[in-house]
C-alpha cells in the first residue's frame, strides 16, 4: 500500500505491506536508522518518535495508519535537551538515546517536569540499560529550568 508521511518536515511516499510497522517503514524503507528497535513490543521505548507532536512507540503502530501525519524522528530533532544530555553524561552506549531524547523533548513540552519524581515517572517508558537515569533526570530538570 502507498502511504504519504511527512517525516521531519519532508513529504515521503512509501510503498509498504499493511503489516509493516511505522518503525520498520522509517528504518528499512525510508532509511532513517536513528530510531532504534530494542524490543519490538512497546516495552523499551527505544523507538519513540513524535507523531503530530505526540510521543509514541513506532513499533506499536502500522505505517499505513499514518497517512498525512507529521512525524519527527531523532534526525529531525533540534532541542536544547540534546545539549543537556551531553553536559550531564546522560548516556553511555547511546542505543536508547534517540528514544530518550524524543521522549524527553515531549516530556518537557507536556510540562511533566515539576519534580524529579514526576520526570522519572513520565520518562519511565524509556529503558536505559546503562542506567543513566539520574543523569537523564538531571538533563531534563536543567532544560525545565529547575536546575
Amino acid at each position, binding site marked *: 500500500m502507498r502511504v504519504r508521511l511527512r517525516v521531519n518536515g519532508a513529504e515521503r511516499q512509501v510503498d509498504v505491506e499493511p503489516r509493516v510497522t511505522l518503525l520498520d517503514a522509517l528504518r528499512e524503507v525510508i*532509511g532513517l536508522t536513528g530510531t532504534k528497535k530494542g*524490543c519490538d513490543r512497546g516495552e523499551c521505548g527505544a523507538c519513540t518518535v513524535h507523531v503530530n507532536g505526540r510521543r509514541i512507540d513506532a513499533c506499536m503502530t502500522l505505517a499505513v495508519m499514518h497517512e498525512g501525519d507529521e512525524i519527527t524522528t531523532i534526525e529531525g530533532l533540534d532541542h536544547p535537551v540534546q545539549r543537556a544530555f551531553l553536559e550531564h553524561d546522560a548516556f553511555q*552506549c547511546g542505543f536508547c538515546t534517540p528514544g530518550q531524547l524524543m521522549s524527553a523533548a515531549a516530556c518537557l513540552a507536556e510540562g511533566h517536569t515539576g519534580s524529579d519524581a514526576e520526570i522519572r515517572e513520565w520518562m519511565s517508558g524509556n529503558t536505559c540499560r546503562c542506567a543513566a537515569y539520574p543523569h537523564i533526570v538531571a538533563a531534563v530538570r536543567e532544560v525545565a529550568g529547575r536546575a
Partner: protein
Amino acid sequence: MATSIEEKPDFKWIGKSIRRVEDPRYLVGRGGYIGDIKLPGMLYTAVLRSPFAHARIGSIDTGEALEVPGVVAVFTGQDCKEKMNPCANFGPPTITQYPLAVDKVRYCGEAVVAVVAESRYAAEDGVEAVEVDFEPLDPVVDPIAAIGPGAPVLHEEHGNNLAYERIFEFGEVDDAFREADVVVEDKLHWGRSSGMPLDTCGAVARPALNGSLEVYCNSLNFNFFIWLVAAALKLPSNKFTVIPVPAGGSFGSKFFAHKVPTLAGFLALQTGRPVAYIEDRLDHITNSDHHGSDRYYDVRMGLKSDGTITALDVDVVDDYGAYLQFGVGTHGNSLSQAVGPYRLKNLRYRLRAALTNKCQQGAYRGFGSEVQNWVLERMVDKAARQLGMGPEEIRRHNFIQPDEFPYKIPTGNIYDSGNYPAVLQRAIEMLDLDKWRTEQERARKEGRHIGIGVVTTQERSVFSSTEFWFWFDKPAFPLTSSPESVTLTIDPTGEFQVQMHSQAMWGNSPETVAAMLVAEEFGVDPYKVNVSYADSAHSLPGTGPGGSRFTVMIAGAVRGASKRLRAKLFKIAAHELEASEDDLEIVEGVVRVKGVPDKSRSLAELASTAYFFALNLPEGVESGLEESCTYDHPYTTLPSDDRKDLGVFYPFMGHACHIAVIEIDAETGTHKFLDYVAVHDAGTVVNPKTLAGHVTGGAAQGIGSAMYEELVYDEDGQFKCSTFMDYLIPTAMEVPEFKLGHVETPSPYTEFGIKGGGEGGRMVAPAAISAAIDDALSDYGVRITQLPIKPSEILRQIETGTQS
C-alpha cells in the same frame, strides 16, 4: 568528587571530568549499530526456535517455506554439521555446539532452522511455514538433580551432566574450622539474570571480492579469538575479517558472542550473498551466548570469638545450561578475590558445573566475581549478627591493612594496593551513618522498617589469560598473553589519530579515554584527537574489553606508543633546532628547547618535515609519524603445578563500600530506597564523570539482579519470561540517586596507577541491598539467601518470623 588520599602527580587531563568525545554523533541518531548496516543485495535471517526444553529433532520439512515469496534458502543443523566444524568451544570437547541444533534440542529457544529471505518479514513468514517433528525427551532443570543419579543426559557423548568438578584447597581449612570458636553456615542461591542490552547481538556477513569473508559484528574480543570462528567456518583465518561495529551495550552479553557471527558467516558462505542475522528480543533472551551466573552454594565460615575470620568453605554448583561458553572461567573471577578485603587464610572451593536444559551462561558484568562478593558478604553479615558485632565493626576488624600491600591471598592472586578502612570511613561520613541509625530507631517505634546495609567488596580488574586454563592439570593451550594495542599517528598536518585494535565503541568511553591519554602525553586538545578501530585483517594483538581491563591496558599502550612517537619527534626537532634531544620538551603541542621557549617547532611543522621533507630528516629516520605499541599484561605469573597457588592473574584490585538505606513495607513486601552511598577505589581516576556513569549503571544492574531480574524456567524447562513485561529491567522509577565518592590508591603496576572500574556497582549492590533488607526486618529474623529478592519471599519470611 574525586578526592586523593595520597600525593598525586600533577596531571593536566587525567582526573578531569570532561564530557565524552564520542557523544555528539549519538545525539543525532548516528550511532551506527549493527542493525543500521545495509549492504547491497543483503538478505535477512529469521530463526525457528525450539518450543521444547529437550527433544530429538525428527524430520524437518522446509518445502513450504521455500515457496514463501522472498524466501531464498532454508538451513538446518544437519547442513551445519555437514559443512562446518562445531562452534568455538572452551569447555570439554565432548560438549559440541553448532549455531543450529543438530539431532537434539537442549533448551527452549535453541535455534533449529534458519530462513534467509529478501526481508525480515519474508524470513519470519518462512519460519512459520517450516515443519519440524520434535520427539520430546525428559528435561532436567534443577542443576542438583542434573548431576545426581538417573537424570536425563543432555550430551550423550559426555556421558553425564557434570561438565566439571574440582576441589581447590588453600591453607589448612579443616584445622581452621576445628580451631574456630564460631562456625556459620548457609545455603545461598544467586539467580540467573543477564546483561540484556537493548541492542541485541548481530552480524552482517559478506563474501568479499578477494575471496575472504567479511563480517560486521558487534561481538567483543573479536581479534583475540577470531581464528576460532574462522575454524568453525572452515576458513583460513586470513580469509576471515571481522569489522567491528559499535555495541549498544554489552555488560558481558557480547563478550565473544560467537553464535551470531558464526551463523551469519555460514549463511553468507552458503548463499554467496551478504546476510544479516540480527537477534530479535526473543532470540536474545532465549538463545543468547550469555545468560549470567546461576549458582547454588553451601557455605561455611569459621571465626574466632573476637570476630576474626579464619576459614571459608565454599561448595558451589553452577547451573551452566546446555552448553559451555567459557568453560568455568567465571569461577576464576571468584577465586581472584575469593577472600574479599579480609585477612582470611584458609579457603576451600569445590566447584561442580552442571548441564541443564537451559540457555548457556557466560559473562555478565562481574563475570562471576560479583556472586562471590555477595556470598562472602552474606556470610560476614551472618557471622556479625551471631557475634553481636556491627557490620562495619566486623569488617574493620578483618580488613587487610594499607601497609600490607602488595598482599598475596590464599589462592595466589596478588592485591596490588588499597586502603579499605579509608573507603569505609568515607562512605560512613558521606551517608552520615549515625544520623540514619537514629532515624532507624525512631521509625521503628512508629512501626516502620528501615534497614541499613553496609558492605565492603573487591572489584578486581584486568584478567590474565592464565585463568582460562589453571582449572586443568593438563591444559590443551596454556596461554599467557592478554595484550592490548594502539597505533598512534600524527598526520601530515599535525593532527592526531589513534587506532584501536579491539572493539568499536561498546558503551564505555574508549575514545574519550584514548583522547585524554594522548592529550596528557602531548598537551593537545582531546576533542581534536580522532579515534578509529582496526578490522581484524589490520589489527595488532588485542584482547578486547571485559573484566574491567580496557582503561588500564589502553593507557599502557598509548603511553608506549607515545614514548616512541615522542622520541622520533625529538630526533627530528633536535636535528632542525641543532639541539640535543635531551634538552627538548613537549608543551601544549610544541616541541621546544627547555628554557628557550622560542627555539621550538610545532607538531604541524615537525609533521610536515616528517612526511614531505625527507632530505631534512636526520640520518636513519624514516618518513612519517606513526608508532604502535602492544602492551602486555603488566603482572602475570604462572600457577604452580599442584594448583595450590594459582599465580597472579587479576592483580589490580579495586575496592568499594556501598551503604544502602531501604525501607520495607511489611504489609506488601515492597521497598523504597531512602539513601544510597557508593564509594569506590579504582586507583587513579581518569575521568570522574564517566566513572560515575559506570558506578551508577553497575549499581542499577545490581539492583536489577538483586530485586527484579530473573530468567525463569519452569519445571518442564519452559521459558517463562520472554519479554520485558516479565524480565524486569529497572527503569527510572527503580533506580535511586546515588551519592558517589572515590578514594584513590594508585596501582604500583600500571601506567598512571589506574585500576579498572567498568563493572562498577554491580560488584557490590546486591550484597548491600540484601544486608539492608535483613536489617530492616531483623525483628522478624528475615535473612536473604536467594536472589532476586521477591516481595512474596519477604512476606513469607515476615509471616514465619511473626509466628515464631
